[in-house]
C-alpha cells in the first residue's frame, strides 16, 4: 500500500457556540449527537473521524443527507474550519497551516468540484477553466494554452467562448471538472458533483470520471448519497451516519459483510452478483469434485462466472492469483446469491450461505435476467471489474 496522501485523525466539527469545547471534554464527547443538540444546542456534523486516502485511489464518502459528508470534505481544505483533530496532507497538518500555506495547498494540491458547479456567470468557459491559473498568477498565454488542453480533455472543445448559462447542466459540470483539473492538483475533491444532473447525463459523467481517473491517475475523494454511484466509482467507500464513520471498505466488503443492520439495510437493494466476487461464495472442495474442470479466479465477479458455471454440471474450482485452489462453487451457490439480491430477506446478510433458496427451473428464468436488465449500471460496470480487481489487492 502506498503512503497515504490524506490522513484524517480524530477530526471533529461541531457547529454552534461552545462547540469547540465538545471534542476535548470527555463528558460531552461521549454523548450522542441528539443528546448534544439537546444539552448544548450544538450540532455535531463530523465526529471523531479517522481514515487514510491512498495515492491514486478513489475514496468515496457516502451517507444520507445530513450525515455530515459535505462538511467532512470541506474540512479537508478548511473551507469549513474543523473544530479539532488533524488533516495531514503529504504529512503536513492542514489545520496548523497559515493563510498563505493554506492558499498554496488549495491552489496547487487539492481542488474541488461542487454540486451546484459554482461557475462564474460573467466569464466564458475558457476564463472559468483558467480561473485557478489566473489567481495563482500564471501568464495569460500559458494559462490559455493549458486551459485549452483541459477543455479538450473534458470534451468541451468548441465551447470555449460560451458563457455558463448557455450550457446544459452536464456541460456546466464539465467546466467545473475542467476548472479543478486545470491547476494540475494531486487530489480532487468531489462534493456530490452529479446529483443535480438527470440520470443519463449522470451516467455519462460517471464514465467520464472513471476515464479521467484512468488517464491521469489523480487521487479522488468523492462524496455522494447514491450507493450505486459509490459502488461504481469507489475503490473504498466510507459510510457516514450522524457525523460518524459506520464502516469503511471496498464495495464487496460492504455488501458481503455489512458492519451492522444500518449498512445491511442500505445495501440490501444492491444486485449482489454485480458486486460480490467468487471468494464470498467459495466452499471447501468436496471429495467428489473433478479436478480437471474449469478454474476461475477468486476476484471474478459472480455475474461474470455465471456462463461458466451454467455450462457445466459439476462444481467449478476457484483459485487465487498464484494458482492455489481455494475451493469450489456450483449452481446452487450462485443461484442463492442471485435469489437473495434485491430482496430484504435476512439470508442476504449471511454471505455465502448456500442452504436458502432451492430454485426450480421456473424462478431460475425469472431471476436470471434481473441483473442484466439494469442496463444503467451494466455499461460502466464492464470497465470497473478490471480496475477494481487490480486496486483491491493493494488497498484492502
Amino acid at each position, binding site marked *: 500500500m502506498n503512503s497515504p496522501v490524506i490522513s484524517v485523525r480524530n477530526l471533529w466539527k461541531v457547529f454552534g457556540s461552545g462547540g469547540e469545547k465538545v471534542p476535548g471534554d470527555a463528558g460531552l464527547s461521549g454523548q450522542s449527537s441528539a443528546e448534544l443538540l439537546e444539552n448544548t444546542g450544538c450540532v455535531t456534523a463530523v465526529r471523531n473521524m479517522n481514515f487514510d486516502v491512498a495515492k491514486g485511489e478513489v475514496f468515496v464518502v457516502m451517507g444520507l443527507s445530513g450525515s455530515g459528508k459535505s462538511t467532512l470534505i470541506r474540512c479537508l*481544505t478548511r473551507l469549513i474550519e474543523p473544530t479539532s483533530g488533524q488533516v495531514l496532507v503529504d504529512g503536513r497538518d492542514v489545520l496548523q497551516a497559515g493563510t498563505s500555506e*493554506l*492558499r498554496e*495547498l488549495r491552489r496547487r494540491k487539492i481542488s474541488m468540484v461542487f454540486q451546484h458547479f459554482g461557475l*462564474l456567470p*460573467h466569464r466564458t468557459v475558457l476564463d472559468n477553466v483558467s*480561473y485557478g491559473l489566473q489567481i495563482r498568477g500564471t501568464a495569460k498565454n500559458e494559462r490559455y494554452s493549458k486551459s485549452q488542453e483541459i477543455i479538450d480533455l473534458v470534451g468541451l472543445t468548441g465551447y470555449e467562448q460560451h458563457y455558463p448559462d448557455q450550457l446544459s447542466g452536464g456541460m456546466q459540470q464539465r467546466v467545473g471538472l475542467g476548472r479543478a483539473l486545470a491547476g494540475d492538483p494531486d487530489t480532487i*475533491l468531489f462534493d456530490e458533483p452529479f446529483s443535480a444532473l438527470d440520470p443519463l447525463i449522470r451516467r455519462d459523467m460517471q464514465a467520464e470520471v472513471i476515464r479521467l481517473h484512468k488517464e491521469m491517475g489523480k487521487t479522488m475523494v468523492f462524496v455522494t448519497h447514491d450507493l450505486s454511484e459509490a459502488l461504481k466509482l469507489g475503490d473504498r467507500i466510507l459510510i457516514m451516519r450522524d457525523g460518524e464513520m459506520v464502516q469503511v471498505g471496498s464495495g464487496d466488503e460492504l455488501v458481503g459483510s455489512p458492519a451492522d443492520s444500518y449498512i445491511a439495510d442500505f445495501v440490501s437493494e444492491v444486485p449482489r452478483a454485480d458486486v460480490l466476487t467468487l471468494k464470498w461464495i467459495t466452499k471447501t472442495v468436496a471429495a467428489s469434485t473433478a479436478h480437471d474442470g474449469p478454474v476461475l479466479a477468486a476476484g471474478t465477479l459472480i455475474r461474470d462466472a455465471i456462463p461458466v458455471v451454467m455450462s457445466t454440471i459439476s462444481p467449478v474450482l476457484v483459485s487465487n492469483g498464484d494458482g492455489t485452489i481455494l475451493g469450489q462453487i456450483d449452481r446452487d451457490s450462485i443461484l442463492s446469491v442471485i435469489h437473495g439480491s434485491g430482496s430484504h430477506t435476512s439470508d442476504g446478510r449471511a454471505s455465502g450461505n448456500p442452504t436458502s433458496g432451492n430454485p426450480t427451473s421456473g424462478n431460475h428464468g425469472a431471476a436470471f435476467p434481473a441483473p442484466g436488465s439494469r442496463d444503467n449500471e451494466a455499461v460502466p460496470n464492464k470497465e470497473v471489474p478490471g480496475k477494481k480487481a487490480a486496486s483491491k489487492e493493494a488497498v484492502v
Partner: protein
Amino acid sequence: MATLLRDRPAAATRPDRGSLGARRVSRRTWLLLAAAVLWLLGFLLLRGTGTLALPASELTDLHRSLNRFNGWIAENRDGNPVFMYILTPLRSAVGLVAGFFMALFAASPTGEVIPVLGWLGTVAVLTWIAFAVGNVRVALLTAVVFTFFGIQGLFVDAAYTFALVLTAVLLTLIVGIPLGVLAGTSNRVQKVLTPVLDFMQTMPTFVYLAPLALIFLIGPASAVIATVIYAAPPVIRLSSHGIRSIPENTKEASDSLGTTGWQRLHTVQLPMARRTIVMGINQSTMAALSMVTIAALIAAPGLGQVVVVALQSLDVGTAVNAGLAIVLMAIVLDRVTTAASQRAEPSARRARRLSGRARYIVLAGTLLLTLGIVQVSRTVLWAAVFPARLNVGAAISDGVTAASGWLQTNLYFLTHSFRESVTVGILNPFQSLLTETPFYLLVVVIAIAAYAIGGWKLAAVTTFCLAVIVSLGLWSDAMVTLASTLLATVIVMLLGVVFGVAMGRSRRIDAAMRPMLDAGQTMPAFVYLVPFLGLFGATRITAIVAAIIYAAPVAIKITADGIAAISPTVVEAAVSSGSTPWQVISKVQLPMARKTLALAANQGLMYVLAMVVIGALVGAGGLGYDVVAGFVQSSVFGKGLAAGLAIVFLGILLDRITQAAASTPGRKPGARRT
C-alpha cells in the same frame, strides 16, 4: 422590563387556545373604543382649552435660544477649530468640485452665464457620455432633451441643476460604493450601517436642510452635501445587497481555488454584483435630482430655484415650464442609468453587435467629433450662448398661465366646490378636532390607542414623541400637519387598495399601470405641486392632492405585490368552492394581504409626510409653513428648526404605530384557527 418581555410572547401564544383569543381581540377593540369616546367627550367638554396654540409670528424661549445659537455659530465660524479644520475645508472642497462642474456646463467663473463648454459643447459632451455608458437611443434622447432646455429658455438653469446632480452623484459614489462593498463583505459593518441608513431614509428630506445650512451656509456646497446624505443610502444598500446575493457556492468555489480576499473581490464579487450596483447608481441619481431641486430652499441654483420663485409668486406658467424641464431631466437621467445597468448584464455583453475593439474605435471617433464641437462652441457665439431667437420659454409660460386662468375661471364651479366641500366637510372638522382638544387629553388618548396596538413599549415611545413636540412649543401646528397628513394617507390607502387589488388580480392592468407608477416615483416631489396649483390655487387642498399623487404609487405597488404574492392555489380553491370575485377579494385576498396593506399604509404615510414642507410652498400651514418661513426669515429661524425636529418626531410616532399595527394582525388568524 424583563418580566414584560417574558409576558409578551405568552400573551401572543395564548389566543391559540379557544375562547381566550376572542377576549384578547375584543379587549383591544374595547380599549380603542374607550380612547375614542374619551376623546369625543373631552372635545365637547373642554373644547378650546389647553390647545397650546402659538400664533405664526410668536416665538417660545426655545425658539429664541435656537436663534441665538444661529447667531453664535455665525460669530464663531472663523474661530472654532471644528469649523476651521473640518467643516469649512469640507465645504470649500465640495464647493470647488461643484464650482468646477457649474463653470463647465452652466456659467463661466467670472459670473457671466457662458459655460466653459458653450451650450452646444455641453450638449455634445453629455450626448457622448450617454452613448459611452448607454446606447445610441439614450444618447439621442439626451441630445434632444438638452437642446429642448435651450428652447425652453432654461438651458443655464438646467445646466446648473445637472452640474449639482453630477457633483452630488460623484461624491455619493465615492463614499457610497466602498461603504456598500464593505457592508457586503463584513457583517460587522453591515450591522452598524443598517440602522443608520434606516434613520437617514425615514427622516423627511428637508429636515436636514436647515441644520446643514446653519453649518455649511446656504449655497451650492451645502446643497450638494444635503443631496449626498439623501442619495447615498440606495447605492450603499444595493451594493451591499449585490455582494450578499452572490450564491454561496460560487464564493466557496473561488475560495477552494485559493483566492486572496482581494482576488475574490475583483474577480467574483464586484463583477457579479455589478448590475445591482449600477441599479443603485440609478436610484441614487434619481434621489439626487429630487434633492437638488428641493435644495433651492437653501439657495441652490438651477431649475428648483425657478420653481420656488414661481411658486412664491404664484406664477403657474413659469412653474410649469421649469417643472417640465425637471421631468425631462429625470427621464434622461433614468434612461441613461438604466441603459448603463442593462449594459452591465453578462447576457447583454455577449449580444453586442460590436466587438470590443470596434466599439473603442467608434467611441474614440465620436469623442474627437465631440471635442471638435466643443472647440466650435468656444469660438462661435451662437454655439456658446443659446440663441434668444429660439427661446420660446416665455410663450410656454404665457400659454400655461392663460390656460390655468381659463381653467380656474371656467372650472371654478368644479374645482371650487370640490375644494370647499373637502375643506368644510372633512378637513376643517377633523383639524379642529385635533387642534381644539386639550393637548394633555390627546396625549392620553393616543397613548391608550398605542397601548392597545403595540403594548407598553409603543405607548412609551408615542408619549415621548408627543412630549418632545409639546416641549418644542409647536403642538398646535403639529396637529394641523397631522390632520392633513392623516386625511391624505386615508385617500392614499383607498387608492392603494382599489388599484392595488385591480393590478394584483389582472396582469393586463398591472402591465398598463406599472410604467405610470414607476414614472411617478422617479419624478422629483416638487413637480407634483405645479399642475394642482394651477387648478386649486394656493390652498391646503393643493398640498394634500400633491402629497396624495406623490405617495399613491408606492402604496399601490406594495398592495399589488402583496395581492399578487398570494398563492394561486388558495385563490383557485376559493373560486372552485363557488366564491364570487367580490368574495374572493374580501374574504381571501384582502385578509391574506393584511400585513402588506399595513406596510403600504406605513410607506404611504412616510411619503405623505415627506411632502409636508413642500406642500407649505403652496398654502399648507402647520409645521411645513414654519420650516419654510425659517428658511426665509432669520427672525423665525429657531422656530423653523424646531418645526423640522417636530416633523421628525411626528414621523417616528406614525412610523412606529403603523409598524406595530402591521405586525399585530398576525395574531388574529391564529386565534380564529382554533
